[in-house]
């Protein structure tokens, strides 16, 4: 048992923290939102310069060989800044799919470009009817000469609008909900038959609806084994759950700090509201939730590399419930203690609140994961 960071990890944490403090204030973020992509290509280049875009990839593919702890450190800072860039989509989600399922040729072709900031990916798996059921895939891939033809639709594809390539799941066999028969494909986002409708989520981050009509994918762009994509999809989602936990922790830290500051300066009845014990105890409750949420994020982070899939899934569900409930409590209380001003678009609090909400609804909400755990009670 050891909670210390290595020197390299501390260095990484410091450099990301510095970058975000210098370049990513709430006001500059407003400017970034005005960019057509909805995020800052300039900051994306800074991430590349710091080595963040190649962080979890192998060194022979232009990466830095970082693990889940390194990703956690980065995501926590991105969470603190409410960063808008497609880091989760490209590096954590689609990046994990390519890293785990991609051939050496595929990894060599893709990772150096990602690491240099020249390519963005998105993970197009979820479908409208599926809600959180990961085997509910209706998109089909049918065999044709030298490849496959994809038809179907993918929903709420995180940063799907600015991706250059999409990692798409489709059924090559089996009925809806069957665990077997799902295959992953690497698809050029501008390929004929791919249509994307981009939009903002509630937290101002970007997503897209993707429709696929007779999209031809050559055999060379199959990612991993045909019909056996599910274990990869599970691990992609697990990496996402761990990374979003770190983001939620970053967001909760800021919400707690802002609320604490506000309680020191906001005066009512002739004294700061933080002098009231009812407010003090609420802040203490928020702190306890934040710390429990942090513990659960550590659990998810450590579990990403757990070899036993059943244990891993269980840890991930526990973590998602734990940090999801913490984030909901902390973010709701932050608004409550700010009072009317907390309800405004002008203040950052509401933006963090909405990021927490989006995180909770990505890859299974609290009810979904609690039900999954309840099934396993024995």
């Amino acid at each position, binding site marked *: 048992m050891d*909670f210390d*960071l290595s020197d390299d990890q501390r260095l990484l944490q410091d450099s990301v923290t510095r970058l975000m403090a210098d370049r990513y204030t709430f006001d500059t973020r407003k400017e970034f939102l005005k960019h057509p992509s909805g995020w800052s290509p300039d900051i994306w280049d800074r991430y590349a310069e710091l080595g963040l875009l190649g962080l979890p990839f192998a060194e022979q593919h232009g990466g830095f060989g970082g693990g889940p702890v390194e990703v956690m450190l980065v995501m926590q800072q991105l969470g603190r800044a409410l960063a808008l860039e497609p880091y989760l989509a490209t590096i954590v989600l689609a990046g994990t799919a390519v890293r785990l399922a991609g051939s050496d040729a595929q990894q060599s072709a893709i990772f150096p470009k990602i690491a240099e900031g020249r390519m963005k990916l998105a993970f197009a798996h979820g479908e409208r009817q599926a809600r959180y059921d990961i085997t509910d895939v209706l998109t089909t891939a049918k065999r044709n000469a030298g490849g496959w033809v994809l038809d179907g639709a993918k929903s709420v594809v995180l940063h799907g609008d600015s991706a250059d390539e999409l990692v798409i799941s489709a059924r090559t066999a089996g009925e809806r909900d069957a665990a077997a028969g799902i295959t992953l494909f690497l698809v050029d986002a501008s390929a004929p038959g791919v249509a994307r409708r981009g939009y903002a989520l509630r937290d101002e981050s970007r997503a897209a609806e993707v429709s696929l009509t007779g999209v031809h994918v050559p055999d060379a762009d199959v990612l991993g084994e045909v019909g056996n994509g599910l274990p990869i999809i599970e691990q992609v989602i697990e990496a996402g759950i761990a990374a979003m936990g770190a983001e939620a922790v970053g967001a909760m830290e800021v919400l707690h700090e802002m609320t604490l500051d506000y309680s020191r300066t906001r005066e009512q009845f002739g004294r700061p509201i933080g002098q009231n014990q009812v407010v003090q105890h609420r*802040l*203490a409750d928020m702190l306890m939730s934040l710390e*429990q949420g942090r513990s659960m994020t*550590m*659990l998810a982070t450590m579990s990403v590399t757990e070899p036993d899939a059943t244990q891993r899934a269980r840890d991930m569900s526990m973590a998602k419930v734990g940090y999801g409930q913490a984030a909901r409590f902390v973010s709701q209380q932050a608004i409550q203690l700010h009072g009317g001003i907390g309800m405004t678009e002008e203040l950052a609090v509401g933006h963090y609140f909405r990021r927490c909400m989006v995180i909770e609804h990505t890859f299974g909400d609290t009810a979904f994961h609690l039900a999954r755990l*309840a099934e396993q009670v*024995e």
Partner: protein
Amino acid sequence: MDLRFTPEEIAFRDEVRAFIRDHLPADIHERMRLGYSPRKEDTVRWQRILNRKGWAAHNWPKEWGGPGWNPVQRMIFLNENQQAQAPEVSSFAITMIGPVLIQFGTDAQKQRFLSRAANLDDWWCQGFSEPGAGSDLASLKTSAKRVNGHYVVNGQKIWTSTAHHADWCFVLVRTNPNAAKRQEGISFLLVDMKTPGITVRPIISIDGSHHLNEVFFDDVKVPVEMRVHEENRGWDVAKYLLGNERTGIARLGKSQERVAAAKEHARDVRFNGRPLIDDAAFRQRVAQLEVDMKALEITQYRVVSAYAKQRDGRPDPLSSVLKVKGTELLQASTELCMDVAGPQAMPLWAQELAELANEPDPEAEWAAQSTGSYLFLRAASIYGGTNEIQKNILTKAVLRL
């Protein structure tokens, strides 16, 4: 960063687990399994077995008869002991007075008391709270006037757990009523419970048990050499005692044991025509508890490993999180057991009935004891500094409001 136990820690855990399994007397284990609180003689018998192994004084240095464990090992030991349904070692002896004497005691006090405390040759109790000094401990009024090499103690203590079993009591008394700050007029005394002038009166708690007492001091003579640390510096000792390695207060192993017991019994009772364990709402309640216990477990690891690294021995304010969350879980898990017991949670006479039928009825006893611990552990969020006081501590120490 690595949440897993090291191979050494796993080997240690297995050693502790095997020792407890092989040495815990069967009759004690059976009573604990049925949910009874350990009797004094159960605690003494088990603690002496542990002491022969050198493990009873789990947080003492080797020099004074402890095993010299690091905080991680201590946590593993406490957790294993709780999960194994063994009596917990006497906290008054081991986590309270022992470390206090090691830190502040005179050589004579150490020689006289430490090894006897480890072996429970002396049973200790804690004389802190008073009718007018609960959460506001520093307002205590029990007085001690110095007369010819003695203190003469007058006053009243309350909520004194196990005072009726005790040979000795460590008592906070006011030696200077005129001190500028009330914390500066307090001293810490060791009082022989056989001294004339001491009266112990039982307080029966809502579970029907006699655990708590009032203790009255009427011109009780305490030799000056029974004072720990300097006169009027007793508050330092009390603070050290209350802040000393509080990670044990979460009693996570106990909550884990209670939830495991609830699940086991939920297989045997029915709900809507099926075993209760198959009910979706029940399973979800268990799942939520398991999530909360996991979060507490990791937070406890964090506090313990931070504690293992810092050498100044200052309590981590995060241990207040452990106290609040740990006691909430202790209460929720005993509540779960009581709810599993269902209508059998109500009868007060389960044991009586078993005796009348002339054959043991373990299910009925378990059910009755589930209610008993549910009732008694309402105290968990009150003792050891109420959970509201813990939030005050967090407000001051972490939020700095």
